[in-house]
């Protein structure tokens, strides 16, 4: 065991930083040292921002997005077409779609995917909330923007079943040729999905 050269306060800071995704023990040490060196220009404003985030940021009771307001800025935005809901697994996916900026509509964050092996069932996801939103009326289309993984597709299948019989159009993201992709390099699964989902030109 190496001898410890820092006090418990710094050690605690390093351990907390190491829990942030993308940081390991080594990079956490670097980050901690950097913060300590830049106390005024970085550490202080960061601490303030963290405190504000802790006090103000919550989960939107309607769509599951994170924001300082409830309902969130997306749900409250009158410029958005609130009759179309894009269903995503995680807030990170919402942000990704917003970066793309292709549709100015509402969202619904599930908070994960169905996964029996991880003990995640329908009740652990924000699926009932989605059914309620559709049942309340005014929703024309649900876009299932879940990952093209086994769990994602299982979840999409499940949601489709739960919404069956309701007067709403259910669509999903296209699976197939990526923009800028060459057919030659695609695997057979992707190619056959692309062929099955071909569209009018």
């Amino acid at each position, binding site marked *: 065991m190496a001898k410890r050269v820092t006090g418990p306060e710094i050690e605690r800071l390093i351990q907390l930083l190491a829990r942030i995704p993308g940081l390991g*023990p080594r990079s956490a040490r670097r980050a901690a040292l950097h913060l300590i060196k830049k106390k005024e220009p970085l550490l202080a404003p960061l601490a303030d921002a963290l405190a504000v985030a802790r006090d103000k940021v919550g989960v939107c009771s309607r769509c599951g997005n994170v924001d300082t307001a409830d309902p969130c800025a997306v749900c409250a935005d009158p410029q958005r077409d609130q009759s179309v809901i894009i269903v995503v697994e995680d807030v990170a996916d919402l942000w990704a779609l917003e970066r793309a900026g292709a549709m100015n509509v509402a969202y619904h964050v599930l908070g994960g995917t*169905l996964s*029996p*092996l991880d003990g995640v069932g*329908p009740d652990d996801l924000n699926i009932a909330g989605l059914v309620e939103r559709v049942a309340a009326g005014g929703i024309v289309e649900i876009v299932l923007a879940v990952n093209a993984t086994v769990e994602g597709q*299982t979840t*999409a299948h*499940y949601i489709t079943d739960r919404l069956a019989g309701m007067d709403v159009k259910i669509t999903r993201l296209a699976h197939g040729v990526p923009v800028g992709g060459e057919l030659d390099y695609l*695997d057979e699964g992707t190619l056959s999905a692309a062929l099955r989902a071909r569209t009018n030109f």
Partner: protein
Amino acid sequence: MPDKVAIGRLSLTDFRNYSELTLRFAGKHVVFTGNNGAGKTNLLEAISLLSPGRGMRRITYSEAAREGSTGGFTLFAEVEGMAGPATIGTTAGDEAEGGQRRVRINGAAARTNEALLDHVRITWLTPAMDGLFTGPAGDRRRFLDRMVLAVDPGHGRRVADYEKAMRGRNRLLSEGRFDRAWLEGIEAQLAELAVAIAVARQDFVRLLTILLERAPGEAASRFPKAAIKLTGFMDDQQALAASDMETRFAASLAESRWRDEAAGRMLEGPHRQDLEVVHAEKSMPAAQSSTGEQKALLVGLVLAHARLVGDLTGAAPILLLDEIAAHLDPSRRATLFSIIDDLGGQAFMTGTDAALFSALEGRAQFLSVNAGTVTETVFDG
């Protein structure tokens, strides 16, 4: 002849009995000789880890790190690969890094370990596989899937996804959660993957059969011809279109939920498939052939597979043949060496006695392995 893929340098750090070792190869075949327990097979195993997966011994990474070493093991290789010269580094077994094996290619982290297949394809034959025909069907399935993976890099992902979805369904059923919509969702995915797996295996068996029938005359006279066939899943429905097979299997899964729940596992699917191997001339199941014949059949299969990989990718795979001389009489041995030469790939072989490989003098580099040190031997046989 396909391009030559060869390993030029191999470095091991804290791997099995080696703390630090660098070997340089001359581009020819390599024969490792030495006593039992000298560490010959460990060298082949290190090479086998230049392909995705857990290598030829299906290791637990933490066990492969040298005893007394602090972290995990690291392997590094310079290869003349399918995409030109490349460096491959891989490390695993360090507890702090979790159970994953990390791969670096040309100095950059690989996105997936399957990326290794863009540079080298590796095929092996080990004494542990001698019981393949008499052993459990699961071993034959794994053997088959490894072979499929070498020609179809997406196969590993497919099998892993299928097994995960199947475990998920098993879990739901065992917990008594007969949530129809959820099960249907899983079963739709299972059906898609199951048919994709079955079709990939079937395609592969068809291709390999063509090559087995076309085996060169000399080889045919020395190595018995094998006839291979898949059984155990949708055997009578191969003529159906894939989408029809998916619909049928999904329906069959929906019907068998209670039965599967009672059994505690899924009773139907590609995870129950078996690779049937028959000694073609004698029309005798491989499992009933003599030990020597079984070995010869197995060698024939592995070599046909190597040829297939070479034909499909334009580069012969690297062959790892552990204790290959055992069970083969001198004439078969000589034929084996000439087939290996003909394949055009680099072969790494081990044996206790250099004399068994005398026919390879001049065509191979002979390295003698002794308690963790490796020295070049000048062949004096």
